[in-house]
């Protein structure tokens, strides 16, 4: 079996969620067949500037074929177009222009996909919202499997993506919430879709003592791992934690990751910068719990890693995915305001038994759902399932794009409005395989 993994950026040093996800999947599926990664030469997701050399490369035993980006992203233009399609009535052409502005615009990659369709059994496209996925899936819907990595952001409400969700052969979702929102927006319930997620590589041994020796930290601490960014809810976390630190708590907060915002100077907030995987897992093994304050997550690999380490988590309940994950796993608590943050953190800080139980549940949840053998099996079963249907899907095509005149008709509602109408809240799992919605229908 020969698989193509099509992703916007690819590299061993890239740590973006979808990119890392793609790399892990590529490396693990490479054991079951030949995997080739098709990507762009970009390494920076803001400008998509060509960084890598075009052509063939190999990373961790996986061959990578890179194509140049023809046009860098102009952030001002992209911002203007985003404002238009997200907030105003607009046309189909406006959405296409938005997609082109977002990038990474690489016609060479799309051309290659068209020309070498028969070289691969299936193409696994990562991240629905980028140029490569839209045009790539339009070019070869017959063999397209989509890993949407969708969050609850306005791009999901754009009409150009509806035929994509309906037209691919299968979707590999990260969470029940993601599946629920995509099914609600596109009505693609009949398209095969599996909630898979991504596994994690946990080192067999990690040492909390080594971490404490290296950093000099003596107190008990909660940990946050990831980009320290306002968009990740870190400003709220800092505010809440500083308030919480005024109480009788003795817990410190350790931050791991690159900052893109100012970190408040507080004796109990320790920023350690970007750490290697070994150091990160050492830190996790010494932590009491992981705090994940993000509002928008399609999966949160860090949370999965924390569970793999037997660490309980405290997540932002406003994020549907994290909220749902915590309920399904029974491996953490959530908060929606400071009072809940304070009470839940206090409970986790003081109740060792609860912490251990949640950690055990987390580990079990990880082993049953996110360990690599499980993930690999789900992918392989999906390929087998699609192979059975291949003959029937020979003439499988996508809904055609609108004609020239209707393309310029401004009849599309702002995508943020469409998104607002979708149900919110965590999606609960039921034994019959369908997700029951706990959500409040607006």
């Amino acid at each position, binding site marked *: 079996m020969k698989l193509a993994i099509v992703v916007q950026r690819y590299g061993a040093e890239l740590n973006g969620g979808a990119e890392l996800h793609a790399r892990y999947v590529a490396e693990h599926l490479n054991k079951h067949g030949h995997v080739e990664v098709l990507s762009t030469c970009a390494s920076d997701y803001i400008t998509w500037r060509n960084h890598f050399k075009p052509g063939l490369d190999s990373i961790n035993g996986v061959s990578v074929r890179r194509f140049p980006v023809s046009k860098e992203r102009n952030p001002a233009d992209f911002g203007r177009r985003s404002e238009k399609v997200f907030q105003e009535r607009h046309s189909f052409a406006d959405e296409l222009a938005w997609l082109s502005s977002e990038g990474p615009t690489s016609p060479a990659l799309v051309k290659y996909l068209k020309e070498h369709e028969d070289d691969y059994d299936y193409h696994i496209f990562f991240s629905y919202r980028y140029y490569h996925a839209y045009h790539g899936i339009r070019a070869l819907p017959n063999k397209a499997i989509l890993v949407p990595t969708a969050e609850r952001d306005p791009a999901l409400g754009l009409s150009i993506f509806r035929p994509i969700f309906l037209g691919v052969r299968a979707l590999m979702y990260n969470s029940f919430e993601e599946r629920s929102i995509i099914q609600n927006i596109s009505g693609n319930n009949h398209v095969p879709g599996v909630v898979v997620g991504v596994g994690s590589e946990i080192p067999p041994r990690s040492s909390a003592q080594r971490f404490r020796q290296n950093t000099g930290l003596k107190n008990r601490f909660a940990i946050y791992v990831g980009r320290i960014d306002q968009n990740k809810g870190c400003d709220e976390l800092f505010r809440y934690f500083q308030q919480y630190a005024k109480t009788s708590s003795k817990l410190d907060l350790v931050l791991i990751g690159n900052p893109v915002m100012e970190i408040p100077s507080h004796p109990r907030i320790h920023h350690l910068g970007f750490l290697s995987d070994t150091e990160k897992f050492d830190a996790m093994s010494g932590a009491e719990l992981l705090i994940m304050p993000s509002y928008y997550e399609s999966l949160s690999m860090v949370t999965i890693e924390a569970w793999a380490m037997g660490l309980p988590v405290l997540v932002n309940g406003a994020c549907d995915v994290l909220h749902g994950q915590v309920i399904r796993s029974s491996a953490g*608590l959530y908060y929606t305001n400071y009072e809940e943050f304070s*009470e839940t953190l206090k409970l986790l800080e003081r109740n060792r038994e609860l912490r251990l139980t949640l950690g055990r549940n987390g580990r079990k949840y990880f082993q049953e759902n996110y360990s690599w053998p499980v993930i690999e099996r789900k992918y392989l079963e999906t390929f087998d399932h699609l192979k059975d249907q291949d003959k029937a899907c020979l003439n499988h095509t996508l809904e055609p794009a609108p004609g020239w005149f209707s393309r310029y008709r401004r009849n599309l509602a702002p995508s943020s409005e469409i998104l607002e109408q979708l149900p919110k809240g965590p999606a609960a799992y039921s034994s019959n395989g369908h997700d029951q919605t706990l959500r409040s229908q607006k």
Partner: protein
Amino acid sequence: MSEFRVESDAVDVEKIMEQIRDRIKEKRDIDYTEEQIREMASVKLERFLDPDKVRSDLVEHYRQQSKDRQSKLAFPDKLKEPPPAPESYDFDHESIYRSGRDGIIGTVLYRIRKILSPLLKFYINFGPIIHALQVQREINERQNEAINWMVQTQAEFIDRVTKLFDLSSSRLAAREEIDALNYEVMNNLVVEMTRLSIEMRNHRMRVESVAGRLEFSERRARALEEAVQYRDDPQKQGSNKSQSSSSDGSEQKRRRRRRSRRRPPSRTDAASIENSPSTELNDDTRSTPDAAESSQTTENMEAAASPLESSTSESATKSTEGTQERKESEVSTTSEHASSDTDSSKQ
């Protein structure tokens, strides 16, 4: 295709969250104690009363604002100078034939063009163009004159406005100083008024308390006077009658001595009741306001006065009976009196 397996036991996250929410709700109800509510309510009053908390930088703020305004109103010098006019170009009927070059070449070119001018005129009619350009030149000149005049007028206007502005700004500065003083005076007035109103209230309460005490003292004095008058008459009658009466007199003296032993002679009864260290006052009653205390004391003394009267009259009527009986009546009187004293002191 396989699906997600969700198996969890022992911990129900939703249940824990429910409990946490309940606890938060309870805390919300409990947390706002009377003390906190008072604290919150007193914030406004404190700010009002404490002059340190009143914003003292208001004047600075106003001054700063006026400075900003001043800087905004300053005119740039450019407005007083006319903009440089484009170079005027004298245009006539010959201009189109002239060459940009000087000397012989220019003259030769001019001649050639002049010779060929009928041919040019055959293709293009230069007349209207030349006329339009001439008109335009005149317009430009007039415009330049107009602009110069406008700029001059503007410069004069700016001078005048600047003078006016200087005048008004100096007035404004003076006004600001007065405002600052007004602010200080007003602030002090408010503080003093608040302080005075509180003092006045305290004084009013004290006056009420004193009035209550006075009234009580008057009543007590009246009661005592009546008692004394009543007792004097039977003494006078009894001195003429028998020996028993002399013994009765000695009893009276003894009774007075006992009473005087119970009360310090330098103080009035009411004062002794309130201030005597031997009285049984508990902390709660001590902390009651003066006015309330005095009114309650008055009521109790009224009640205390009546048993005193009854006991003395009783003893007087029974004076003719045996010594034993007199002794008994005396004991009962003193005990009643003592009890009435104690009751009143308790208040």
